[in-house]
């Protein structure tokens, strides 16, 4: 939870920061073209992420030998405030007019380094990044020599390109003050409410006929012991009555097109096609409980259920009198060769439900068979202590010797488990076995990830742009994630993350504009033959023919460069990705 709070406050702080930045817009410096390139190269160790594999000092030394490089140094973390200051100092001291940072991927860190260059008076388009982490040190971890050679190649290419970079000025795009929130569980509803309360129109889309998601199925939630409906009802009322929230239930997303500021959404709402436009998107599709089919007699014996099924039984008061209950934790979770991640909520949930059963009937014996108890934070540790004091028995089993469920007469069950602390087998007769399995991604997750062009991690949950720096952002601008779609979380963690996602999504909508890269095409009129091929291949109608000359409509150009690759006379110039720059990279790569 604490890390989620950090996430949320980080998001808010970041929000304030960017808003301030936006206020001092309009100081883009263009210039420095005529001067000979003076390139500074900053090579990042990234702690041991790069430095542990690549010989960074050697790369620095090598950089100094490259043409137009007047200064090179290494930093422990180039992205730290100290590292950024080093860049600014380097620019001043050595009169740099081009900066190359060899570190991680431009997809996460380019904006930061560009801003730093701008602060020191170097146009941001004169900055170039050499990705020696994601595409070098992290993928060649056991080949330090080869990784160092490849890092030099990558830096040489970046320097070759930097030499030919030209200063440019950003283009501004309007952002529609409306958001799409996908999923109306506790995370989606909270994100929608936060945005709607800030005055933004919200389309809240839910696949199921009703809102509430997983929370609808729960009994009481830890650590407050409130019933789920107590938590849920006020939210549902607020969402349903909010004049700026358009709730679409039994609705699925059909297509998502466009960019931050202008997404075109098509949904299928109860068989009817609905279209709308939004500026930002929040993914809050949640997760489902993994079904342990065939394990521990699940599906074979009626008395073997999952923790979520127990929640529903407790919610409906259907439990009845039981002699003994056995809970088995880490079922198909934390398995090095299988589902490797921790279910996160299972320890606390089972302790809570065990206490509920025990408090309802002192006579019922409750056993919790665990591998490790992860009672993180203050409240959960207290519950754990309370559970032990209440007489709940905790038995430690090992991954390679899991408990076995045996058939007993008269519908009873028997669990045999090897207690690793007592070094002996224990047999427990019981009426109910409850299996804690981890949450997993929906079957529809993959399709949505493809539609939004955002990634899923190896655990199949939606993957944020950066675990620490952009915990609720995707690498694609204008799309954010919260709740269990991002990985197992409890209610409070989901709510905190929903607040953070809403806060992040509100930034571009509040400003009303995003700056877009000046990566657009232009025409060298003296070379253009007027064949019109570029006009034919452009899908955005950004090229018009004026007499025998092509002309680029700058606001319509999206910067793909398809036109430049088709021009027979090489008279279409794709700014920031010019033929000359790319060929210089090719040349440097193969030298």
């Amino acid at each position, binding site marked *: 939870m604490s890390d989620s709070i950090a996430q949320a406050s980080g998001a808010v702080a970041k929000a304030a920061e960017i808003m301030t930045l936006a206020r001092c817009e309009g100081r883009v410096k263009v210039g420095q073209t005529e001067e000979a390139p003076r390139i500074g190269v900053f090579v990042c160790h990234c702690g041991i992420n790069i430095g542990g594999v690549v010989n960074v000092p050697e790369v620095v030394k090598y950089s100094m030998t490259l043409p137009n490089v007047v200064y090179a140094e290494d930093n422990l973390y180039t992205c730290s405030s100290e590292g950024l200051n080093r860049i600014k100092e380097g620019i001043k001291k050595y009169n740099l007019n081009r900066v190359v940072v060899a570190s991680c*991927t431009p*997809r996460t860190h380019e904006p930061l380094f560009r801003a730093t260059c701008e602060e020191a008076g170097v146009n941001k388009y004169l900055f170039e990044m050499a990705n020696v982490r994601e595409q070098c040190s992290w993928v060649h971890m056991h080949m330090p020599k080869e990784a160092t050679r490849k890092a030099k190649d990558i830096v040489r290419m970046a320097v070759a390109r930097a030499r030919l970079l030209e200063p440019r000025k950003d283009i501004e795009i309007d952002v529609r003050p409306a958001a799409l929130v996908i999923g109306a569980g506790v995370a989606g509803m909270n994100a929608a409410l936060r945005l709607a309360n800030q005055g933004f129109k919200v389309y809240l889309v839910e696949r199921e006929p009703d809102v509430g998601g997983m929370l609808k199925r729960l009994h009481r939630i830890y650590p407050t012991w409130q019933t789920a409906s107590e938590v849920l009802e006020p939210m549902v009322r607020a969402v349903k009555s909010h004049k700026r929230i358009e709730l679409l239930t039994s609705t699925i997303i059909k297509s998502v097109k466009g960019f931050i500021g202008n997404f075109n959404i098509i949904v299928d709402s109860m068989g009817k096609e609905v279209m709308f436009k939004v500026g930002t998107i929040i993914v809050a599709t949640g997760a489902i409980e993994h079904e342990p089919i065939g394990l521990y007699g699940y599906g074979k014996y009626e008395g073997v259920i999952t923790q979520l099924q127990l929640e529903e039984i407790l919610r409906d008061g259907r439990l009845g009198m039981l002699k003994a209950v056995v809970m088995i934790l880490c079922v198909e979770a934390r398995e090095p060769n299988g589902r490797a991640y921790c279910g996160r909520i299972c320890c606390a949930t089972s302790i809570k439900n065990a206490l509920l059963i025990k408090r309802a009937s002192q006579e019922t014996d409750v056993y919790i068979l665990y591998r490790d108890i992860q009672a993180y934070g203050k409240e959960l540790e207290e519950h754990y202590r309370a559970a032990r004091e209440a007489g709940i028995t905790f038995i430690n089993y090992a991954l390679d010797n899991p408990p076995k469920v045996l058939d007993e007469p008269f519908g009873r069950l028997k669990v045999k488990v090897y207690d690793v602390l007592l070094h002996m087998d224990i047999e427990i007769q019981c009426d109910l076995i409850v299996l804690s399995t981890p949450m997993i991604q929906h079957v529809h997750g993959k399709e949505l990830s493809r539609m939004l062009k*955002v990634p899923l991690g190896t655990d199949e949950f939606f993957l944020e742009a950066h675990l620490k720096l952009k915990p609720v952002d995707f690498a694609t601008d204008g799309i954010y994630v919260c709740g269990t779609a991002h990985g197992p979380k409890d209610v409070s963690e989901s709510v905190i993350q929903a607040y953070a996602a809403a806060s992040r999504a509100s930034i571009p909508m509040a400003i009303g504009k995003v700056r877009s890269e000046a990566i657009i095409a232009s025409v060298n009129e003296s070379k253009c033959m007027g064949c019109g091929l570029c006009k034919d291949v452009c899908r955005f109608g950004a090229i018009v023919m004026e007499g025998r000359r092509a002309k680029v409509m700058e606001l319509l150009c999206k910067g793909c460069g398809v036109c430049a690759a088709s021009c027979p006379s090489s008279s279409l110039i794709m700014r920031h990705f010019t033929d000359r720059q790319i060929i210089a990279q090719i040349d440097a790569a193969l030298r």
Partner: protein
Amino acid sequence: MMDKGFEPKILVFLCNWCSYAGADLAGVSRIQYQPNVIPIRVMCSGRVDPRFVLEAFKRGADGVLVTGCHLGDCHYIDGNYMAEVRMRFLKECLEEIGLQSERLRLEWISASEGEKFAKVVEEMVEAVRKLGPNPLRSGGSNEGRDVKEKARGRR
């Protein structure tokens, strides 16, 4: 013709939106692959001018891998279709001038396909390793001269 200890050099063009992110994901997931590939980021696979590929071979690349979003998923609607048409045509041209067309490969790799990126790289490195060095690289060999002459003839 295979050099002993021949380490191919393969240039990879990655589109910014899908494949570059896919390659990053391979890194984030610590999926290990051979270091014979050198990345060049472009905004769209449709930006890859056939000339870039030819320049790469001319300068001695043993292989060129062009990667983009899956068909239908292009950030720019259909730039990747453009790439497909161009690379298919280019493969024929390569055969004609005597460079094996397997030295050029086009693959669709999404932002979520880190594993696929690593797999494609491994396959490509092995395939090119079997083909041996780009004949243009060993400029002096008969084969290299042959390819150069043929290429000149086509101009």
